[in-house]
């Protein structure tokens, strides 16, 4: 316990030092924290807030404002769904609803079994392929609700290539 606390505090100190403790550099600091931990753990955020003398609510607001920040650990797989205008018009909204209800996941969250993290994003710049769903970096184009669900249902529950996962 004590050891973990020390390392955690050290990590926060280290990150703060990288930016000379500038509160204006809060976002890069949070990005670094996420890179180190894979997500933004609540305790670490609280510690960072305390050290920067900022209210925790400010950090929470930032963390929830930007969709690239995550407050829960990543799932085994990463599922990104484009809900930009074109994809949306072609049914991405319904796909999103289906994903959320079948896998009990919230946008930006991870399924309770840790199978995948689900992130709806605004336009991936592949409108010709709409609607687009990206699973572990692989683009699936023109997916219907059924096709999307089938892809997700057949996701392997074991880690296949952990190296590839660790990035992005």
């Amino acid at each position, binding site marked *: 316990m004590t050891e973990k606390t020390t390392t955690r505090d050290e990590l926060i100190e280290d990150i703060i030092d990288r930016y000379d403790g500038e509160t204006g550099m809060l976002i890069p600091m949070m990005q670094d924290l996420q890179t180190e931990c894979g997500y933004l753990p609540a305790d670490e955020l609280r510690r960072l807030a305390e050290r920067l003398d900022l*209210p925790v*609510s*400010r*950090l*929470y607001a930032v963390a*929830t*404002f930007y969709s690239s920040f995550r407050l829960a650990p990543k799932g085994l797989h990463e599922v990104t769904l484009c809900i930009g205008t074109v994809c949306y018009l072609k049914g991405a909204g319904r796909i999103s609803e289906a994903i959320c209800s079948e896998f009990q996941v919230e*946008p930006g969250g991870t399924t309770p079994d840790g199978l995948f993290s689900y992130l709806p994003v605004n336009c991936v710049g592949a409108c010709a392929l709409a609607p687009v769903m990206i699973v572990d970096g692989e683009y699936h184009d023109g997916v219907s609700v059924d096709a999307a669900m089938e892809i997700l249902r057949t996701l392997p529950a074991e880690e296949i290539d952990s190296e590839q996962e660790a990035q992005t």
Partner: protein
Amino acid sequence: MPTVTIDDIQVEVEQGATILDAANKAGVWIPTLCHHPAVTPQATCRICMVELDRGEWKQLVTACNYPVRRDITVSVSGDNAVKARRGVMEFMLARAPDNEQLKAIAGRMGVDSTPWPTVTVAQRDCILCGLCTAVCDEVLGLAAIGFSGRGVDRAVAAPFRQAPDDCIACGACQAVCPVGTIQLRLHEDTDEIEISPFKARAKLRKCEQCGARVVSEPTAAEALKNVNVDWEKIRNLAKLCPKCRRIRAAESLAATASGTPTKEMTR
């Protein structure tokens, strides 16, 4: 002093006063929601929009924070201004369709319903004006609550949506909320006050004399922190409810009047 012409009524206001100040002086009603004298102008709700006449062109501005720097002409009851405000109100009614406070203002503005689909129950009622977060940050210096998410997911929340550590359950957020979204719940069994929906709870301080519940313990502690003079008297008075405090003050006054001077005299 610049002159503001509002719907043909002319008033003079101090340099830097807002259009809203001028309207109040002129006796012209402009609806407001996110405006509160205790905090800096939020200008988030847009319900106070009026049309500023700039000669060649006209512009919609928010009356609550638009500073008057020179003579200006403003229209509150003109078509554009009325339409703009009603449009905003229709959006708000979609967020808080059953809210009595909002409906009262809407009625006064001539809006009786909204053409928009209403939001989900989880987002119901809050119009995201930001007064609660502002008072907690600017006045209390706590910022125990803040905004979370963005776009349609924007909401007022405590960090991690858990009971906030920094909350002293003072109830200021509840007091400023223009639509009564934040509520104080009394838990008789535990003598606790809860600030809903933030799940914040704190023990209530009881009047030493009559047992009436006064404020939350952390609020009393916070208030005493700001008292520089460590007067035993103030400490003791803080243990009473306002009523008993007045009675005690009257007693000490009476004692003075009857010729027994006392240092215990208070307001």
